[in-house]
């Protein structure tokens, strides 16, 4: 029961964190058709900027500056780099973001070194939210969840209730039509890209104080974020949220489950036979917890590429 409760809490919060990063990615893809390989790099940049700023001006200032900084970087990238390559086709856009991811990772290593940095949360947040079965549950985890939820609500309200949101959604559906109606689509694209980057940067600033902030952050999270946006449906914000929670919960639970395929087959009396085969049969779910999301991603891509909530075709 303890395992169940803790895993659920951790899973939901990890899922919400994944959502913060993937929200920007899925919005950008839905609108511009660009799969931004550098998106997780924005996440990492956010963490490092927050670290740098917080060392001199404190945690809260760092938390504020990081998304703004990363957002501006995002806008510059879109305006001066992506837009240039747009004429060469989708493949080149993909490749450019690819190269950018490389540059950001190396630049971060250049300035901050190859090893994790000591990015710490504010002392005011360092307490236990509640106690579960005798263990203290850190408030900061809850804090991360709160930031993510606030972000989702703000985003949803912005997109569905405000004029800006309507323009953004129109630009997503029919960019040329929206442009013909007088809206400055290039500016919309730049802003959306910047906003998406800022969100990822915020996620990094928040998460970096809890999880290790190191140059591998982008790579570690990057692939999982792709799984999330594919499973949720490229372009769908709600789908992203759903898939993030799904994968967050799964990852959380899977690490504690030591069953293997052989164990399952033992239920029908084929345990020994399965064990004698070895290999895949005896692998425990906890060991292959990293593999299953990719298998899920493959399944979705092949069976229903629109994902859970994306639009068909």
């Amino acid at each position: 029961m303890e395992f169940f409760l803790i895993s659920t809490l951790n899973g939901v919060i990890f899922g919400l964190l994944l959502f913060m990063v993937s929200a920007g990615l899925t919005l950008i893809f839905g609108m511009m058709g660009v799969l931004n390989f550098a998106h997780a790099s924005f996440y990492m940049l956010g963490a490092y900027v927050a670290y740098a700023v917080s060392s001199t001006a404190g945690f809260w200032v760092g938390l504020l500056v990081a998304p703004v900084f990363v957002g501006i970087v995002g806008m510059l990238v879109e305006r001066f780099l992506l837009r240039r390559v747009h004429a060469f086709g989708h493949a080149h856009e993909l490749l450019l973001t690819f190269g950018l991811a490389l540059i950001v990772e190396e630049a971060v290593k250049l300035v901050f070194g190859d090893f994790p940095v000591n990015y710490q949360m504010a002392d005011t947040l360092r307490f236990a939210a509640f106690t579960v079965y005798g263990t203290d549950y850190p408030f900061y985890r809850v804090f991360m969840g709160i930031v993510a939820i606030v972000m989702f609500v703000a985003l949803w309200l912005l997109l569905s209730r405000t004029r800006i949101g309507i323009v953004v959604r129109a630009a997503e559906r029919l960019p040329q039509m929206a442009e013909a109606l007088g809206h400055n689509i290039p500016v919309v694209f730049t802003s959306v890209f910047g906003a998406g980057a800022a969100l990822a940067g915020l996620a990094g600033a928040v998460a970096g104080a809890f999880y290790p902030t190191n140059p591998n952050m982008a790579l570690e999270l990057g692939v999982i974020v792709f799984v999330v946006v594919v499973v949720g449906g490229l372009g769908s914000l709600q789908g992203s949220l759903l898939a993030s929670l799904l994968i967050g919960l799964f990852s959380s639970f899977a690490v504690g489950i030591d069953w293997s395929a052989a164990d399952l087959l033992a239920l029908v009396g084929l345990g020994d036979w399965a064990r004698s085969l070895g290999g895949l049969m005896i692998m425990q779910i906890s060991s292959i917890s990293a593999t299953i999301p990719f298998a899920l991603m493959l399944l979705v891509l092949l069976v229903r590429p629109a994902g859970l909530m994306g639009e068909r075709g």
Partner: protein
Amino acid sequence: MARALLPLALVGAFLLVAPPFLDLGWQNALINILIASLFALAFNLLAGQAGLLSFGHAAYFGVGAFAALHLMARIEDGLGFPTPLLPLAGAAAGLLIGLVAGFFATMRSGVYFALVTLAIAELFHSLAPHWQGVFGGEAGLSSMRMPWGGLIFGSLIEVYYLTLAWVALSILLLWGLTRTPFGRLALALRDNEQRVRFLGYNAHVTKVIIFAISAMFSGVAGALQAISNETANYVLFASGVSAQVVLYTFVGGATIFFGPAVGAVIFTLFAYLVSDLTRSWLLYQGLIFVLVMLYAPNGLGGLIHQHLRHRGQLDWPRLARPYAQATLGSLLVASAAIFLIETLAVVFSRDYAVARRDAGGGFPTYEVFGLDWTPLSPVPWLLPLALFTAGLWLVLQARHPIGALWQRVRAGSEPGVNPS
């Protein structure tokens, strides 16, 4: 045709004759260059010729490596399989996995295709460290090259010639493929898949075959690496490996046959020469890649090809000055960037932090390019700025005349422009 053969013949002669006279470091570098070139050319069959961008080609490279190691282990145990034929294991494994992976991957196109290939590679990457039997778990597999036919295969130079033979054969086959009906079909597929269907071709089957052949030769490359290193582990499936081959291919140029090989040579040489000089060589690699993507979308090979193709129409005397200007300007900009990056690397390094602590929090001098600088004086910051500005100015100045001269060439090569 004959003109193109000359540089090839020169390269071939060098590769054949020079290596015994080079030191071990260079022999090893050449082996890596050959393997990287084959991998890139195999990749480009899918990406450049058929227009299907794969972001997970490490899977087939890795599978080839592990297959070769398994066979090597059997040979060590006494199986009488000839060592020089080891790459066949890589080819077979690559082909098989490529057929299965390709069947599913080619059900999708564009970004979705790329994501499927990514997922497949990650599947291998995450599974391999836990699968002791097939992939040797986290430690991986190791095996020794066994003697065969009078050759011991103990020295690097023997491995080099084995690698050369297989790479040359593979490249020959890949090139031959482009002359066959199937090779022409691949190009058509890239241009207009729909039309290919309506001409009576089963596009899906065609794509699967292209995928499988590309995977097969990737497997050969992987096998060659396993033979050379006598070891392999799950790291071969990492996204970095898939990324490298994409980098080589597109910097070299995906639209001409030897482009990817050019990219592979440049980057592997770059890594070999520069990685000892600076810790930031990956950053330079990334910067070069992004610059090529922005300003030479068909790659460096494409750039060369364009010049060769239009060499009769280009006004070379007029081009000489702006090209020289642009080159000089680029060199200045590059040196500014390198200076700045190296400076930052030193200033942010741990050693410097220690030096600062010893100097009581001040900013002691540091060394870059053999000279001493102080961070507090404006010189180390103004110098790159000046170089950068001067270089940029030169390049921008040269842009217009170069653009105008090329415009003339393009207008000249198009017959009667259609009024509609």
